[in-house]
């Protein structure tokens, strides 16, 4: 079975986080370049993304508690995990530690864990930030003790808005550059390598169509 997974994809990225934090919106913003209100995910949804010569498998999981025990399959051999929380909800941040980090035991040993605060745009309106940048950054360093983060261009923590499209592509490219870096020639085909740059216009990254529909 593991052979199957490997044959199929060169990198497995899993997105974990409490229900309703915006995981599906985040993936769809990256893959489709659009934001539509999404229904809660049932089980998990699979996306295949081309990155240069690499096949990237992206698993968008459902955050509902009843699925927790079943996440093993999705986490196994993951090379990267996106740990998503809603920046206006403390409990969604706490869940990362309590519920989701333990699941990553079955991920690859050098799995990179990127902590991603979602719904940044809400902070512009009336909602208050519940988790400080320092707190989240510290957390993101702690959970990556398995890898040498000093080689990373920045701490594995991002604040994003799928609604506005800010910082979404950056998260994926941060991961890809770490796990499956492209040669210069490949890069030209694949597009920009993203370092966080909020001033950059919204990237509606979809060069590849989703796999189905």
């Amino acid at each position, binding site marked *: *079975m593991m052979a*199957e*997974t490997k044959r*199929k994809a060169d990198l497995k990225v899993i997105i974990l986080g409490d*229900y309703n934090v915006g995981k*599906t919106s985040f993936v*769809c913003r990256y893959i489709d370049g659009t934001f539509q209100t*999404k*229904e*809660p*995910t*049932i*089980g*998990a*949804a*699979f*996306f295949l993304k081309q990155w240069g010569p690499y096949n990237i498998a992206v698993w*968008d999981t*459902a955050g*509902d*508690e*009843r*699925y927790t025990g*079943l996440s093993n*399959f*999705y986490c196994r051999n993951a090379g990267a995990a996106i740990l998503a929380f809603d920046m206006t909800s403390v409990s969604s941040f706490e869940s990362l530690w309590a519920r989701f980090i333990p699941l990553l035991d079955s991920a690859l040993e050098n799995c990179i864990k990127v902590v991603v605060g979602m719904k940044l745009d809400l902070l512009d309106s009336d909602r208050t930030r519940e988790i400080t940048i320092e707190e989240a950054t510290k957390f993101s360093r702690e959970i990556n003790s398995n890898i040498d983060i000093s080689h990373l261009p920045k701490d594995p923590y991002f604040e994003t808005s799928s609604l506005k499209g800010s910082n979404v592509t950056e998260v994926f490219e941060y991961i890809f550059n770490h796990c499956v870096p492209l040669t210069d020639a490949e890069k030209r085909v694949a597009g920009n390598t993203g370092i966080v740059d909020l001033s950059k216009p919204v990237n509606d990254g979809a060069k590849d169509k*989703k*796999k*189905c*529909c």
Partner: protein
Amino acid sequence: MAERKKEADHLPTSESDQDDFIEPDPPVVTNQAVADTFVNIDYEDLVNPDYDSHPSGYIHEIVRQGSHDDDDEPRVAVSSVSDVSTGEESSEDHTEISTKEISQALDEVSKLQHPEVSLEDEEEIDEVDTQEWRQRKKHVFILSQAGKPVYTRFGNEDKLVTVMGVMSALVSFVQDSKDLVRFMVAGDHKFVFLVREHLILVCVSHGAESSQQILLHLSYVYNQILSVLTFSTLHRIFKQRRNYDLRRLLTGAEKFLDNLLNMMDTEPGMLLGAVRCLPLDSQVRDNIAQTIVQNAKVKDLVFALILANNQLVTLVRMKKYFLHPMDLHLIINLVNASESFKAAESWTPICLPKFDSSGFLQAHISYLDDRCETCLLLLSVDRESFFILSECRNKIKERLVKYNALKAISDSLMKTSYSIQQCGISDLRHFLYKSRHMAQFTSPELEAPYLSETEQERLCGLYFYLHHRIHTSARPLKILYTVGPHETLLGWVTQSFELYAVFGPLVTKVAAIQAINKLLRWVKREEDRLFIPNHVTF
């Protein structure tokens, strides 16, 4: 309503206006426990989904005088009602339950009916206190054995703590006397209880359904919960903590319950324990099934099926397993209630309680067409088989496109199924025909006079009535002919089919019988297109 009924299979010859007509022949519908197979499935089997618990079969009707009508029944009377028996008759005497306690409890529950009595929270106006909430036709409540709210169809569970508490008190009060409350009648409301090992399901309805029909609906709801959690999980959780708030595990699953209940209000399939098939040329259908068989030869793949607009296109099964119609309805509900499968290939656990209530199957779910109408489901016991199934799916899709089968499906979906005119029978307005062997049914499009919502609801009510009268287990009927003010109804049940037909009010009995015979011939002719006689196996 004047009624004439006759148990013979052919032309009725005598009439009876008695309501308590006693069926002399042995009932057609038997209560035998039958194996969970397509060939043997019958209605009674579905009414008693007692695969995990077997409540001792007392049925009590607790009649409470509605405060607003001049009913002269005793204030609280408990009587055994043999015609809702589940076949577990006991000769023990029923004792009257008329204690103060129960009437107090009933007073509490009756708040559901009386707007002037307000519930707890005085400060804000709860939805629960609104006229609108009270007038809902069919409430469904789920609570844990400890009385904790789990689900309400309308409103917010948190506002219903008292009502749910009373419901659980009622249940345990009756349980204390080693008995089981099944339903109560209060005014024009029925309170139907389904008591399972860890959950209590209550329906409060003033709709057209009979108590047994409501009970059937509740068992669908219960199975929907199992489908999301499995019985093992439910059991483990409540064993660990009786007081557990199950809503935590059901977040996001309420929509399945909502959707199921809405479907049951309008779709006769669940009442009949049968699914509707998408009309298709039988060769095309065979072709689709064979494509699946050839391209999904995967160990541990138990069922593969294609659904389109809540209709079954094809089903391929492992040789030794059958897909029970109740499980199939849960699958249809899953697909119908979720938009999320349209975005990407999904891999999700699903428990099919009739198949195995203790564990999950893993479902690969994907749409095969761009318009997201044709949905393929591959159900496996192997949690690891996603990529293999994903490959199968791609091959199946490719072949179906090549053979124009996807187009045939979408063409069939474009056409409205069929008009009653096509059957060529005057006076016949609408019908439901269920093949009992196949657990499938067919019915024509709804046409005038059943176009408005209220008329459709009324028609639905007629079918509920007809179905109820025929399947009343104390005196099941083979044929029932009923003349009502607006239409004449004819129901006919044999070993192989169930037919419920609605005629204009002026049809004569002879004409109706002739029409039915003609209709049966028509169905026979169209059978290949409307039904799937055999499910292909891997």
